[in-house]
């Protein structure tokens, strides 16, 4: 349990950084698809 209450390490930050990068990459892909008339609903 002590381990679960431990302070976030650098790897946790890297995990968030990687999450942010993945989100930004998805946004780019969505924008690219919108350029070709893509819509998420259909």
């Amino acid at each position, binding site marked *: 349990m002590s381990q679960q209450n431990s302070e976030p390490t650098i790897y946790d930050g*890297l*995990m968030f950084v*990687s999450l942010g*990068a993945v989100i930004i*990459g998805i946004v780019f892909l969505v924008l690219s698809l919108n350029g*070709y008339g893509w819509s998420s609903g259909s």
Partner: protein
Amino acid sequence: MNNVVGKILIVLQLVFSLCFMCFAGAAFTFHEGWKKKADTLQSKLVNTEQQLSEQQSQRQQETANLTAELTAMKTRAEMAEARVTGIETSLNQAVGNLANAEQQRDKHLADLAVAQQEAQARIAETTDARSENLRLNGRVVEGISVRRTLEDNLLDRQGRIDEATQREQQMLAELARLRGLLRFNKIDPSDAVVGPVPAAVEKVTGVVTASKKNESRSAELVTISIGSDDNITKGMSLIIFRGAKYICEIQVTEVYPDVSVGRVIEETRNGNIERGDNVTTKL
């Protein structure tokens, strides 16, 4: 150990996430550029298609115009060929006509040369005929003068014949009267003549010295220059003439030694008696 693997996986996840983000950003960026370029090209394509359609319509119109012009040109060319053919035919015909005309011209020139030669010959003949005509005219004039001379001679001879005929008639009448007188006196003309024989009348010539009418103007009296000295006797017939022209005959009524008077026998009159006319006992 698990922490090491987890850390490695986290790092790998970070690296791949970053790579994904970079590739997604690059794809977005390139896609934007490509999209702009595609839009530009699309608009250019549309414009080009419009221009192409306009050009095609113009080309079709020009093609139609050119086709019509070509048809018209073909028609004109056919007409021109037909005209050229006709002109060639006419030209050939004209050349033939020209050849015929040249032949006829040569023939006519030859005929003209012959005609000129004939004309020269005719001119020479005409000149000869004119000279002959002049010569004949001269002869005709000479003949006319000779004929007139002969006619004058004929008239003279005719007058003399008439005179001789009248004298013959007078002589016959005188002979009949003398025969009657002889028969009345019971003298036979066949008997020999007894007594002086009158001398034969000799040819004596003289001239008329005067001529005038008698008082009763019934006869014309003529005075001549010969008389009894020239054996002129009363009752003798004398002949008055002028040159070769016979005028009349007179009968002596009065006789003097060198002058006599005679009466004109009107039946023998053939002209006026003038002073100087010749008188003779016989021609």
